[in-house]
């Protein structure tokens, strides 16, 4: 038995599927690719799929990963890549298969690119407005937790946020806490924009990478 890390992108149509659906989708693709998965030895044998860090519904992912356990380790990573890609939907392409280096538990940050549609507004001005907003002393938004909504100040987590106009749109590039310890969902930034500026602008969110505590990219 050996563990391999499958690297994929979740783009286009697949950003609209939930994490649970992604799990099912991935299992089926692996089944189609005839990859010999290792199954648990219990009463109901099942395969183990471990995703590095689930994405919220609607958020695209440029560098996502899932770990699987293989029964037969004669398969090279190159061959796995080829077989998987032939079995994946177009909007869920696999771009690498590697041996895992870091443990998913080490993930501490995620980098996000949020493309805001100014809907007729001047992109430069909007970018300026957003930059000012994210530099306020505090920025309290309602955050959904297990015990209901709480007031949550996101400002302490916005030190690594840049806003700039790009081709008539506005891009928010943000490095935000992500992982099991602390998590700031990028949609909270949009929440702040709506609450403080009264703007409900259509925004596409992409997670571009994951990092550990020292900002080393997740491997």
């Amino acid at each position, binding site marked *: 038995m050996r563990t391999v890390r499958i690297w994929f992108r979740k783009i*286009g*149509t*697949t950003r*609209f*599927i*939930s994490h*649970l*659906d992604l799990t*099912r*989708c991935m*299992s*089926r*693709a*692996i*089944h*189609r690719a005839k990859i010999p998965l290792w*199954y648990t030895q219990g009463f*109901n*044998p099942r395969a183990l799929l471990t995703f590095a860090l689930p994405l919220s*519904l*609607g958020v695209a992912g440029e560098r996502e990963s899932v770990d699987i356990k293989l029964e037969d380790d004669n398969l090279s990573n190159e061959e796995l890549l080829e077989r998987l890609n032939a*079995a994946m*939907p*177009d*909007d869920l392409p696999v771009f690498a298969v590697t041996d895992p280096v870091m443990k998913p538990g080490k993930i501490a940050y995620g980098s996000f690119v949020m493309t805001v549609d100014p809907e007729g507004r001047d992109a430069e001005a909007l970018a300026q407005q957003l930059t000012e907003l994210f530099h306020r002393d505090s920025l309290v938004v309602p955050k959904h937790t297990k015990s209901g909504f709480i007031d949550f100040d996101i400002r302490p987590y916005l030190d690594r946020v840049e806003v700039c106009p790009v081709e008539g749109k506005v891009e928010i590039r943000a490095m935000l806490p992500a992982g099991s310890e602390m998590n700031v969902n990028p949609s909270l930034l949009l929440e702040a924009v709506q609450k403080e500026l009264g703007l409900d602008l*259509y925004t*596409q969110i992409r997670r571009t990478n994951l990092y550990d505590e020292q900002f080393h990219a997740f491997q």
Partner: protein
Amino acid sequence: MKPELEKILMKVQKPGRYTGGEWNSVVKDKHAVDVRVAFCFPDTYEVGMSHLGMKILYSLFNEKDYIWCERVFAPWVDMEEQMRRNGMELFGLESGDSIHDFDILGFTLQYELSYSNVLNMLDLAHIPLRSADRKGLSPLVVAGGPCTCNPEPLADFVDLFFLGEGEEVDLEVIDLYRAYKKEGRSKEEFLRAAAQIEGVYVPSLYTVTYNEDHTIAAVTPEPGVPATVKKRLMLDMDRSYFPEKFVVPYIEIVHDRTVGEVFRGCIRGCRFCQAGFIYRPVREKSVEVVDRQCHALCDSTGYNEISLSSLSTSDYTKIDELLDQLLSWARDEKTSVSLPSLRVDGFSNELMTKIKSVRKSGLTFAPEAGTQRLRDVINKNVQEDELMKTVNMAFSGGWNTIKLYFMIGLPTETMDDVAGIAELGQKVVNAFYSNPNKPKGRGVSVTLSASSFVPKPFTPFQWEPQDPIPLLHEKQRHLVQSVKTRKITCNYHDADTSFLEAVFARGDRRLCAVLEEAHRMGCKFDGWNDYFSLPRWMEAFEACGVDPAFYANRRRSFDEVLPWDHLDYGIRKEFLIRECQRAYADTTTPNCREACSACGAACFKGGICYEDR
């Protein structure tokens, strides 16, 4: 994906219903095809995507290079609201293009309560509802499926109906359309030509006249149009088209698995069951073909579950052989096999161990009625001791959850028959506790599920009145009060929806106006309890001056002209009358494998009618 769609999707539940792009979905160049077809299922994505008929026809059409068939489902109300607000028309999932400009919109009519969704979907595509208001050849609105055995309540909206199985006739009509489109011919010319194809019913070419008592006087075809339309069917199931690929949805759907179709038709002839008559005669596939089709589908989809589908899978003549064959590879591929429709008398120890071998699921049986007398009336041909033998076998095999399906409101039913349902449940509970091999340390759970009987066309009960709603409610209460133990859970279907189903099942063309009015009043998703409103429907009936009880609760005489009398499903009326009379005499009829009862299906020249008994 189109940007307008992406924007909306963030605002609706389960956006995965509307994205398209699933594995095995077919995308073609729209400029390289002659005919664009929208296969419309008038219910949600999860329901429609589970339907085998759609999977078959989708693949069949798309194998032709000149056809591009896309899938269309009824958007849920939140999505509809967003679409209407943003001026987005109903679109095909594959291209994202509005179906307004498609050549053919094909609806599948699986249940009467989806009719309001048919109109709503046309409306969402900004297509005139009435055939007469659509002057051009396209879009052509067609419909198929079991409900077309009485399509009259939709006669004003649908240009042509397909009767029976669609694998051949659908393509014949598409080919005819393609030729007529190229030649620039009119819709009238096309419909007249299509009406000559066997299995095609063009309602606008028939005139219905009525008597003073509101019954039908006559259905008169225009000159040159066939007086009766006969259903089509596939005689050689081994050679009948079956897809090697299913579209694999991103989101979970109702039946999310490989489906192996083992046969069509049913030998049984339960007198309430429309499917048991309109799909005759029984035609089986061979073990090799079912096995090959299941394996190919598991390979192409990645599903690890196979469901063997038919009206009564334990009646397949080689069921043991088929299971052995499937399990020979399925076990290694961690794939399970399930049998959705088991008969009480078709459950053997051998069968039980085989379906248990990969994964264990609950057991469901349908005795349909609580007493032997009533089971004989409906020709269910299941004996109480068979049920006891079966549940004991299941208990010994480790099961402790049994679900039993019943109907209330069956012809000749008394309150004692209703109480008999609870008594039968009690006997199953008692059987568990007196079984020495029952699972240790666990109690038993028996669910009794009661639906309300809906008389359907082409059954021996097609002349029967449905119990009025208050009587159905009384019977439901009586059932609940008759249950004496907590080991039994009792649930029943809403009588209001069964009433509406009964109206439309045996309705005629005068219901078209009611349907249109109900649509205008906002009726949709009538099969969903959260959306169904009988008071709103009653308003629509009233506004149109139509009495729904005339259709649901009235006993017809054997010589009345029925709205579907000009449609020929091979089943002779004399046979249905004979069966109805036998029902009232508590007499059962042997199944097709035991003896032929001369129903008329032999006219199709194949299937079980010509096998050695």
